[in-house]
């Protein structure tokens, strides 16, 4: 039996960063909003300070079948439950650079965005004021124009000072890492106490996760957020010209239809394409919004370049923020390592607060050690360890894609399958960054330096924006080219990945899209 619930103005699929931001903006604009989240209810009280318990925040929905030489790591990178992956994100919020928006035009590589930095700049400023970012705009000599940060930068603790001296010895520059983490009480949210639990979720609201920022605003303006609601299909009118709502499976397994004037997909870079493809109908045999055949394509995932070291000093590596303390973007020029065949931008995030265990913990940096050697390493490294990670631009490749598997979930919806192979030029950039990182750590005085294997972080693409409906899924506001009241939000819109963390840009795009939707509501709605 299919239950039908009261029609709303907008139904949003996914309660992560993008969905929560859209819910806040649209409800503030007077719209009746329903947010459907596949995962469970989450509150601040669920954000347990434990490397083991933190795993509950990661994806726990239907399996994603992963292939390629650098699989996307969907469970680790995606979230599950109210707040989505933003609940366990580290709050590293740099801006994209102007050249990131015009890569095809400037370098004949990758794709162009359908908007420029200047189009997004006011929304970066708006979001940083609303959510709060700590940083030092003057010290970030690479930073594009924009309003100064509203909070003083994160402190440079011992690990940060040690690594900074390595950069400086090589003539490189460092600045405080721009973090959406409070260095003072900000808009009623507490200041951080630098205990390194970001990955487990920040229950005091010092880190700008959706439970602390957008979801309270959405709730205050009447938005309804429903957990354990797994959307399985987007509904349209008979001609397939307009979206009419979604069908979801509720907490007790019942099918429910939610009708809405506008449907917004904010279920991240894998589940959004899955839903579009799984909603194929007679008017849209290739899937919704897929007349270009682009849905699912250009899936991207930053290759992470991890550098580790041991120092004679007590590094106090357990203190600070998980994202790090300092930033270096000297390698942001996409041609920096051209001679090696590399292409693209990268950014170092250095002096990350670490825990003893888990995938990003001290112990996993040396997977070769076991037995008493492992105990000895842990006893030593806990006092003398340091780390930094480079975000490596992942060049967009059409064949890196989300598609539907021939396997289905319990309700008959095909599972998502992904292919991701790192582009050769991105691979070379990853290698070049690792070599640079080794030099930095040696220059800083490390007694031992080693690097980690390539791992992916930050899922992007799959529903890319573009000017041309022939080769993109959405326009610059996330509106699908084919169906005017079907909107996509989140990093899936990115046509290129840039060399910085995506969440700040996701929120700026969501703010810009929300403003557009509110101003053009009547023209979109059937």
């Amino acid at each position, binding site marked *: 039996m299919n239950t039908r619930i009261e029609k709303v103005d907008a139904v949003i699929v996914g309660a992560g960063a993008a969905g929560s931001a859209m819910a806040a903006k649209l409800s503030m604009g007077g719209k009746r909003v329903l947010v459907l989240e596949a995962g469970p209810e989450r509150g601040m009280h669920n954000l347990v300070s434990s490397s083991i318990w933190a795993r509950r925040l990661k994806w*726990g929905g239907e399996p994603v079948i992963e292939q390629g030489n650098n699989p996307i790591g969907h469970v680790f990178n995606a979230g599950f439950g109210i707040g989505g992956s933003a609940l366990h994100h580290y709050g590293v919020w740099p801006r994209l650079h102007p050249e990131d928006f015009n890569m095809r035009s400037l370098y004949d590589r990758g794709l162009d965005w359908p908007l420029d930095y200047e189009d997004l700049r006011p929304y970066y400023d708006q979001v940083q004021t609303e959510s709060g970012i700590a940083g030092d705009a003057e010290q970030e000599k690479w930073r594009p124009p924009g309003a100064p940060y509203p909070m003083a930068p994160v402190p440079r603790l011992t690990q940060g000072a040690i690594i900074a001296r390595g950069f400086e010895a090589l003539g490189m520059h460092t600045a405080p890492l721009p973090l959406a983490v409070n260095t003072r009480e900000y808009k009623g949210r*507490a200041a951080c106490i630098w205990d390194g639990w970001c990955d487990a979720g920040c229950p005091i609201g010092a880190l700008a996760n959706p439970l602390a920022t957008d979801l309270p605003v959405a709730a205050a303006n009447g938005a309804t957020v429903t957990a354990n609601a797994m959307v399985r299909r987007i509904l349209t009118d008979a001609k397939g010209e307009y979206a009419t709502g979604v069908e979801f499976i509720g907490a007790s397994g019942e099918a429910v239809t939610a009708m809405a004037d506008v449907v917004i997909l904010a279920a991240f870079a894998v589940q959004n394409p899955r839903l579009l493809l799984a909603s194929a109908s007679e008017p849209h045999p290739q899937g919704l919004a897929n007349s270009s055949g682009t849905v699912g394509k250009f899936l991207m995932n930053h290759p992470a370049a991890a550098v580790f070291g041991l120092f004679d000093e007590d590094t106090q590596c357990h203190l600070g923020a998980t994202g790090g303390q300092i930033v270096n973007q000297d390698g942001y020029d996409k041609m920096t390592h051209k001679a090696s065949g590399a292409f693209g931008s990268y950014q170092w995030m250095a002096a990350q607060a670490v825990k003893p265990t888990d995938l990003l913990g001290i112990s996993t940096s040396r997977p070769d050690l076991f037995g008493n050697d492992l105990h000895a390493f842990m006893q030593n490294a806990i006092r003398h360890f340091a780390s930094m990670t480079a975000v490596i631009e992942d060049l967009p490749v059409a064949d890196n894609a989300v598609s539907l598997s021939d396997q289905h979930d319990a309700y008959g919806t095909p599972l998502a399958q992904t292919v991701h192979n790192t582009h050769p030029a991105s691979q070379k950039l990853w290698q070049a960054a690792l070599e640079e990182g080794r030099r930095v750590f040696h220059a800083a005085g490390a007694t031992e330096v080693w690097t980690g294997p390539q791992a992916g972080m930050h899922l992007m693409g799959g529903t890319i924006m573009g000017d041309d409906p022939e080769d993109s899924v959405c326009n610059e506001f996330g509106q699908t080219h084919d169906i005017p009241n079907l909107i996509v939000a989140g990093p899936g819109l990115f046509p290129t990945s840039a060399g910085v963390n995506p969440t700040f840009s996701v929120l700026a795009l969501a703010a810009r899209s929300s403003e557009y939707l509110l101003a053009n509501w009547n023209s979109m709605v059937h």
Partner: protein
Amino acid sequence: MTPRLSRRAFVRHSGVGLLSFCVAGCRLEMSPAEAHRRGIPFQVLSEDEVTTLEAYGETLLPGSAKAGLAHFIDHQLGAPAVDQMLIIKYLGVDPPFASFYSSGLGNLDAAAKARHKSPFALLSADQRIALTGQLAQANPDGWDGPPAPFLYFVLRNDALDVVYGTQAGVESLGLPYMAHIEPPSRWGD
């Protein structure tokens, strides 16, 4: 919405992470280490699997058997997929994970028998260390379970979880745990 917590609004539970075990029809809460000490029956793992698992765990990280490695894994294997906290969930293996552990431990024993005519748990310490070092690098002949280096990686991390991933484990390294919210008194609810 859940009200915001004030700064360091600590929830002081018992703190060390207790598991909920079924004993003679009753649910009892105890730590993995206590469950190990009391010999609480296993729900998913077989007796042979537990023996092999604890022997391999002791080789990977001495002290892990006493810290309750087998009870931790057994408890998690019985939990719903959405509540899983084993590190394997990150590593491209779809739940349920019982077959991974069963196949991996079975192959580990088979490899020990092929090389030394004895199950892994009965090998000498030197034999265990040598075989573990080899399995960390490549599958031995005849291995048909999950890749041996992958099994090594997963079980090594499981052992690390129970030894250094808990509040007591972190503090054993001389670090303050500094929890905002300590792990609840039960792991699997």
